[in-house]
């Protein structure tokens, strides 16, 4: 298809349908919902990084007037090991169940051990204080390299490293080993004339959504349950609760509230099954809301990492081989995205020989969760730092070096497939053309660039388009709107139907009111759910032309559809009939007009981005100031460009935070020292310049409008771009994130001493 934009709505910037509610305080997020007679639920959490629970005594708590229920792991069904996986795929529900409520051991500070429901928060807090727990504190390990040592404290003595033949004889904290080989790396390094290699570390960072996890649950004597919560997928919440609590899916209805940010962190359950248990035990609705401290200690950050990597190239800059070992912190249970790190690190480049090994390592920290392009940013930080070092060693422009090795259509991706239509080269060329790339720099200032790749996904998606009797339309989907997707759905429906965007009302339905859809994640919604909306709208158009044909009494093949009107020659005369007119006649042409599409969308186009970052380094304090930032990305086709720009800007700033300030800091006892926004320092407005964006549009031919997912790519490149800029500004390269003032200052002083 071409991008010749004959679109009326696609590519425009209308006001989002849910906008007024969100600027007036009327939008209802999870914590904004209440039912009469609701109890307040709170969770008791472990103060220790690793301990055996010897006993728990609830008697004093239960004696407090107003305490209505207490639950612990004994109230959770035991999931047999052979039933842990559904369809052989993660998540592991045994682990998830234990993570929700520790059974015999706590594995991190903040691990839940019991929950209370009471008539007020105050009483619930009082009850938590009176629960007596006896612990046997065990040795702990929070560092990934230490956890891999043979004599490290073991989180589980039943865990044997998977992916190694023969099966190891001793248990280990290394949950699995992954190997990805392309070509002949030994031969590739033999062909290399220069090599660069280094060790890198990155720290866990939190997704940092501003909305605290919250939910309300109720369950009747008939076992029928309702959950009001914010999540990245109401169908995910329903499926996970059903599996964990051994309920039928049909017994649970999940009503999605507005979601106040997720970034991958709300793709699992933390409170919902506990609230259901408390509601069942008390016979009352139960509302739960985490504190920010709980969000930090008990919900998933992104993995920290330890990475070694080596790059070989010819003197002309042709990269001949890479190899690396990536060790990711999984947290208390396996499942870090290390495999995705291996797959994405060098995906922007055409490198014939590579060998990357990934280790998924458990440590006494909260179980890691998805965070925007899970696994990619830390691996990309290492890869893009090395490419910059290679450019310096060869005396080449870092952009030209990337162009020389850039992946194109037909390039063999390191993780398997050959790329089809991709726009990576176009992002590099846009970077070179951008005034930012040639803007002058002052003393102590430097410019870095880096690129990033993300797969993007499709998946199961449902949509229905209902035509109201006045010719307006309702578009119903099953995916939480996390950043403006309602606007995209309405735009795409308006485009196909040929009616005004304002005549389309997008609705996000609960699990009992629409067909199943995979969760909002993987940059899939505008692509895959959008595809379902387009198909449903096309279904409607087919019905509208049929109705018009019957009203005109002409064969349907003679009726066409243009700009919201049926067109035909009727008795020799050109006639047209508006959607509104056809809708008004629907009663006498066969009844209501509605279209559906239920698809498993394939063909998500991969996304590539290139970022340019200018920084100034204060050599006396080590403080880094971001002076100028440009995010360039192949977005396929921007349905609502303002919200696409917003994805690039928001992702870039999260990446800047990851690079410069954010980290989980643990003390020697395994307790997190910075459990709040004051000490866990996310970027604020005064830290930043404007974030310029360039939307490159190389259409994805497998989407009706050319859409590629856009949400995840933008967080990948900033880590490398910032690190590369700091290296050029200060003459000192930092291999350990975050590049916080003390760390950079120490590096600068070390260099001065030399």
């Amino acid at each position, binding site marked *: 298809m071409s991008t010749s934009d004959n679109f009326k709505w696609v590519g425009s*910037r209308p*006001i*989002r349908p*849910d*906008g*007024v509610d*969100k*600027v*007036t*305080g*009327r*939008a*209802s*997020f999870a*914590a*904004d919902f209440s039912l009469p007679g609701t109890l307040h639920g709170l969770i008791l959490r472990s103060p220790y990084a690793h301990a055996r629970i010897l006993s728990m005594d609830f008697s004093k708590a239960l004696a407090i007037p107003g305490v209505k229920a207490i639950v612990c792991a004994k109230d959770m069904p035991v999931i047999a090991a052979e039933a842990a996986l559904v369809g052989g795929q993660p998540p592991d529900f045994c682990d998830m169940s234990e993570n929700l409520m520790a059974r015999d051991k706590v594995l991190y500070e903040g691990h839940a051990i019991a929950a209370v429901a009471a008539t007020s928060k*105050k009483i619930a807090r009082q009850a938590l204080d009176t629960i007596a727990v006896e612990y046997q504190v065990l040795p702990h390990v929070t560092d990934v390299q230490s956890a891999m040592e043979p004599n490290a404290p073991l989180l589980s003595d039943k865990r044997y490293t998977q992916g190694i033949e023969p099966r190891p004889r001793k248990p280990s904290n290394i949950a699995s080993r992954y190997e990805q080989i392309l070509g002949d790396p030994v031969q590739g390094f033999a062909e290399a004339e220069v090599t660069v290699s280094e060790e890198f570390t990155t720290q866990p960072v939190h*997704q*940092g*959504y*501003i*909305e*605290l996890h919250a939910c309300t649950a109720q369950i009747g004597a008939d076992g029928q349950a309702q959950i009001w919560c914010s999540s990245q997928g109401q169908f995910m919440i329903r499926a996970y609760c059903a599996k964990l609590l051994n309920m039928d899916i049909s017994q649970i209805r999940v009503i999605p509230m*507005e*979601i*106040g*940010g*997720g*970034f991958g962190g709300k793709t699992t359950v933390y409170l919902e099954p506990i609230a259901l248990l408390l509601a069942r035990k008390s016979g009352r609705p139960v509302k739960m*809301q985490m*504190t*920010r401290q709980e969000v930090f200690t008990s919900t998933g950050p992104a993995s920290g990492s330890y990475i070694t990597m080596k790059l070989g190239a010819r003197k002309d800059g042709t990269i001949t081989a890479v190899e690396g070992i990536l060790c990711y912190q999984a947290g208390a249970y396996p499942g870090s995205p290390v495999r995705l790190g291996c797959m994405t690190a060098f995906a922007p480049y055409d490198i014939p020989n590579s060998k990357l090994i990934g280790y998924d390592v458990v440590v006494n920290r909260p179980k890691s969760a998805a965070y925007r392009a899970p696994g990619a940013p830390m691996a990309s930080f290492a890869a893009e730092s090395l490419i910059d070092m290679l450019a310096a060693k060869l005396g080449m422009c870092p952009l030209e070096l990337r162009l020389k090795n850039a992946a194109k259509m037909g390039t063999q991706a390191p993780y398997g497939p050959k790329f089809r239509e991709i726009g990576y080269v176009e992002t590099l060329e846009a970077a070179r053309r951008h005034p930012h790339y040639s803007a002058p720099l002052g003393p102590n200032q430097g410019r870095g660039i880096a690129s990033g790749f993300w797969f993007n996904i499709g998946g199961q998606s449902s949509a229905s388009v209902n035509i109201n009797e006045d010719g307006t339309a309702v578009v119903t989907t099953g995916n939480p709107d*996390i*950043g*403006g997707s309602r606007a995209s759905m309405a735009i795409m429906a308006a485009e196909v139907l040929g009616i005004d965007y304002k005549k389309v009302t997008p609705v996000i339905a609960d699990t009992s009111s629409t067909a199943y859809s995979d969760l909002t994640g993987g940059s899939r919604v505008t692509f895959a759910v959008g595809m379902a909306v387009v198909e449903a709208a096309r279904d409607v158009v087919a019905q509208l032309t049929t109705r018009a044909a019957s009203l005109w009494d002409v064969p349907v093949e003679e009726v066409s559809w243009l700009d919201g009107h049926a067109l035909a020659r009727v008795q020799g005369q050109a006639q047209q009939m508006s959607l509104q007119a056809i809708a008004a006649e629907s009663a006498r042409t066969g009844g209501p007009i509605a279209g559906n599409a239920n698809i498993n969308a394939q063909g998500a186009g991969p996304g590539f981005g290139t970022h340019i970052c200018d920084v100034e380094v204060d050599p006396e304090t080590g403080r880094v100031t971001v002076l100028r930032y440009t995010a360039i990305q192949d977005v396929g086709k921007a349905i*609502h460009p*303002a*919200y696409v*720009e*917003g994805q690039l*800007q*928001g*992702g*870039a*700033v*999260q990446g800047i935070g990851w690079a410069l300030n954010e980290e989980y800091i643990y003390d020697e006892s395994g307790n997190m020292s910075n459990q*709040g*926004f*004051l000490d866990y320092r*996310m*970027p*604020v*407005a*005064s*830290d*930043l310049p*404007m*974030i310029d964006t360039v939307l490159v549009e190389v259409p994805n031919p497998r989407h009706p409008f050319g859409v590629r997912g856009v949400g995840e790519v933008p967080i990948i490149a900033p880590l490398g771009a910032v690190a590369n800029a700091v290296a050029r500004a200060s003459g000192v390269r930092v291999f350990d994130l975050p590049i916080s003032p003390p760390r950079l200052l120490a590096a600068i002083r070390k260099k001065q001493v030399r």
Partner: protein
Amino acid sequence: MKLHINAFVNDEPVEYLCDPEDTLLDILRDELHLTGTKEGCGSGDCGACSVMLDNRLVCSCLVLGCEIEGRSVDTIEGMAFADKLHPLQQKFLENAALQCGICTPGFLIAARALLDINPDPSESEVRYWLAGNLCRCTGYDKIIQSVLDVAAAGRENS
């Protein structure tokens, strides 16, 4: 023992009973059902609960409900006049200055407070004034631009 408080919220008289440890945020959300004011941290670090207290910008999670006797609180629910949005609300919509929208009420309250005392702020002044409000979705760009746009439009109209 609960305390009986009389105050004004969005120019309307209110009365409520509150525990001495209840915050103004608790009272607004749980007693008065004004849930437009959001909780993001409970420690004054994120600005999601920003309200005006006697025309002064505060984090309502750092004020006690029993401190409000006889005083006046303005929340996001009072920012639009019937169906007429405040220019900041309108500009946030036009510029797509919100994604998830949870931080938006706090930003709007804080931005209005800035423009009330400084109708012609520089970009740096806007950035430092809003540094107490966290947004994790937008990277702040479109928020800052919206405040600057409204300030510029205000100068043209005056």
